[in-house]
């Protein structure tokens, strides 16, 4: 592994890795059953440096911002390295956002370079307000059409320039990335993370879960995702491991990739874990009775023998067919524990497949706590990682309070928002807005949120303010979107829902037609952003002098007056 203590920037550490592991396999890109390419670290460098030269020859200067919007593919990492090599600040944007949201983030971040896929670029150019994208100078696209106008973009494979690009050294406190932790319909939250944030997090995580040449990490999540950025890019690269990019999320190809590439580690969102679980359960159910009987006994034996700590070799022997279905080399699945059902995690652990549950948020790097599996605890998100100070503030009678974090991995600030930064980082402590409690063994348990937002099973943060515009034409007096748990707290982060609160006009009734309109407007939102229910509220909303809705006061009033079950209607 590269000694990260010797490096002051991601560019420097990655550059050292490209040289040290030149002959090791770096990236494999697969699309369904096809393998698109396989590159060594040396070949990766041979692709990244001409791109860096191209960027520099087109005026990309140190500290300038370069955005990437791509689905899961190897060229994401090539583009990211070229930006770091040039001393730039990476803006990794979520490809699943809509084109207007991409446009808003590009504007807010003042990105000068954009590397994206052609269909996304075309959609951005068709947005109202595209002309205001004045900072953007260079656009590079993958998957260009064979014919037709590229809309002033350059195909990725032609974005090359001769000559050695200048390597620009950055210092630990310099900005590495601007990561958006919410959409842009409300208040953009551009988390500014430094090189130090990432290097410290990388050192901490790889000390618990080491990578080495020969390890294969399956990258299913896009690399803009905080977990994949760390364990599917930085971590494996500085250790000379291999990253397998799968360009589809189709369950049948995900399952096949485990065996085809003999995967060692993978990071999954709960939705995919659930899907894998369903597939396994179906296979178990189809076993003939005698085989099923034997299997259940072996599973029970494995469960008993691994109660105190995992024993991978033993589990692989006892349940060899299950492990063979995952390629036989799988050591751990990483997932975010705040929104994952403990029963799913326990299901895998009982089969001898270790699921490492972490708790993190963009503002604190990748992970604050991680279950060290010693012993395995499906009901917690583990203990704080090395270097993390975690406190529970203002605990109630049951010890539950707001989780606060101080560490070298906490972001520098929110871009261009000192007020929000001051609310979120107080005297060096990041106030997470999540509610938690430490148990007697030092494991953190989470019990919901003190903030008005949800995280979906796909690992997406959704803020009510970001989706309210979709309901702008609803013919009601006023409306407001909430996380249901914000109005009526439940001590869980599972199954979080958004709800819309409607205040009807005088004399108006809630008709089927109004419900139809509500459903139609809801359907214009991406699937994971939709509201699940509605509440009819019979009082005017409390508002500030500038007519903004006082959300806290409204939620307090609703909680005091109506019961969740009685008030909340399914949409």
């Amino acid at each position, binding site marked *: 592994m590269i000694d990260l203590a010797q490096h002051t920037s991601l560019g420097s550490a990655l550059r050292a890795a490209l040289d040290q592991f030149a002959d090791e396999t770096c990236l494999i890109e697969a699309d369904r059953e096809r393998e698109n390419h396989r590159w060594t670290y040396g070949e990766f460098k041979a692709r990244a440096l001409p791109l860096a030269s191209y960027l520099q020859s087109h005026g990309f200067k140190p500290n300038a911002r370069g955005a990437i919007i791509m*689905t899961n593919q190897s060229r994401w990492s090539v583009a990211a390295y070229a930006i770091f090599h040039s001393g730039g600040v990476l803006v990794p944007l979520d*490809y*699943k956002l*809509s084109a207007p949201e991409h446009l808003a983030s590009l504007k807010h971040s003042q990105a000068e370079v954009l590397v994206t*896929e052609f*269909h996304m670029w075309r959609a951005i150019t068709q947005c109202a307000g595209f002309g205001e994208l004045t900072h953007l100078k260079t656009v590079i696209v993958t998957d260009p059409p064979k014919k037709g106008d590229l809309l002033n973009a350059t195909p990725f494979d032609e974005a090359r320039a001769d000559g050695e690009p200048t390597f620009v050294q950055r210092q630990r406190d310099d900005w590495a990335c601007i990561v958006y932790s919410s959409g842009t319909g409300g208040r953009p939250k551009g988390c500014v993370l430094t090189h130090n944030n990432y290097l410290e997090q990388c050192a901490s995580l790889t000390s618990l879960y080491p990578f080495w040449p020969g390890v294969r990490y399956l990258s299913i999540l896009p690399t803009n995702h905080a977990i994949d950025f760390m364990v599917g890019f930085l971590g494996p690269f500085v250790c000379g491991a291999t990253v397998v990019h799968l*360009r*589809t*999320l*189709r*369950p*049948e190809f995900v399952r096949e990739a485990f065996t085809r590439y003999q995967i060692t580690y993978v990071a999954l969102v709960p*939705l*995919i874990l*659930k*899907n894998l679980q369903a597939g396994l359960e179906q296979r178990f159910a189809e076993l003939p009775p005698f085989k099923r009987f034997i299997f259940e006994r072996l599973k029970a034996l494995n469960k008993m023998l691994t109660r105190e700590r995992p024993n991978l070799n033993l589990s692989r022997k006892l349940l060899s067919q299950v492990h063979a279905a995952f390629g036989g080399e799988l050591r751990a699945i990483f997932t975010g524990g705040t929104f994952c059902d403990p029963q799913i995690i326990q299901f895998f652990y009982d089969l001898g497949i270790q699921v490492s549950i972490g708790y993190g948020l963009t503002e604190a790097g990748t992970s604050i706590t991680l279950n060290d599996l010693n012993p395995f605890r499906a009901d917690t998100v583990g203990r704080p990682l090395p270097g993390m100070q975690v406190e529970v503030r203002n605990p109630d009678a049951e010890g539950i309070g707001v989780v606060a974090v101080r560490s070298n991995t906490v972001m520098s600030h929110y871009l261009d928002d000192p007020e929000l930064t001051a609310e979120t980082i107080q005297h060096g402590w990041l106030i997470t807005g999540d509610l938690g409690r430490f148990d007697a063994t030092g494991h953190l348990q989470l019990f919901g949120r003190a903030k008005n937002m949800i995280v979906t*099973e*796909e690992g997406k943060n959704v803020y009510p303010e970001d989706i309210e515009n979709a309901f702008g034409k609803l013919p009601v007096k006023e409306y407001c979107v909430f996380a249901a748990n914000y109005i009526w707290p439940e001590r869980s982060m599972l199954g979080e829902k958004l709800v819309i609160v409607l205040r009807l006009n005088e004399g108006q009734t809630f008709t089927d037609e109004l419900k139809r309109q509500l*459903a139609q407007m809801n*359907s214009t939102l*991406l*699937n*994971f952003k939709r509201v699940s229910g509605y509440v009819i509220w019979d009082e005017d909303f409390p508002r500030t002098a500038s007519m903004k809705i006082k959300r806290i006061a409204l939620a307090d009033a609703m909680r005091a007056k109506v019961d969740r079950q009685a008030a909340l209607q399914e949409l």
Partner: protein
Amino acid sequence: MKTLEQIIDEILTLASTHFKTDRAALTADDDFFKVLGIDSLQALELLTRLENHFNVELPDYEVQGVSDFRTLAERIEARL
């Protein structure tokens, strides 16, 4: 060459068979996530079935943001 209506009809039949729902209860403009009670990965599974049936290949991104049968049919029609 199949018409859009034929494609929609075949999609609805396939979807009702695959997810064991009443064919008569499905219409072209239904939100398939809701009417079939499926998540985004199950929608991708359905897509694979449709690809095999219509003998086309649709990248995952083509169906990102699509949630009704009619739009899905239009995307398939464009590839036929």
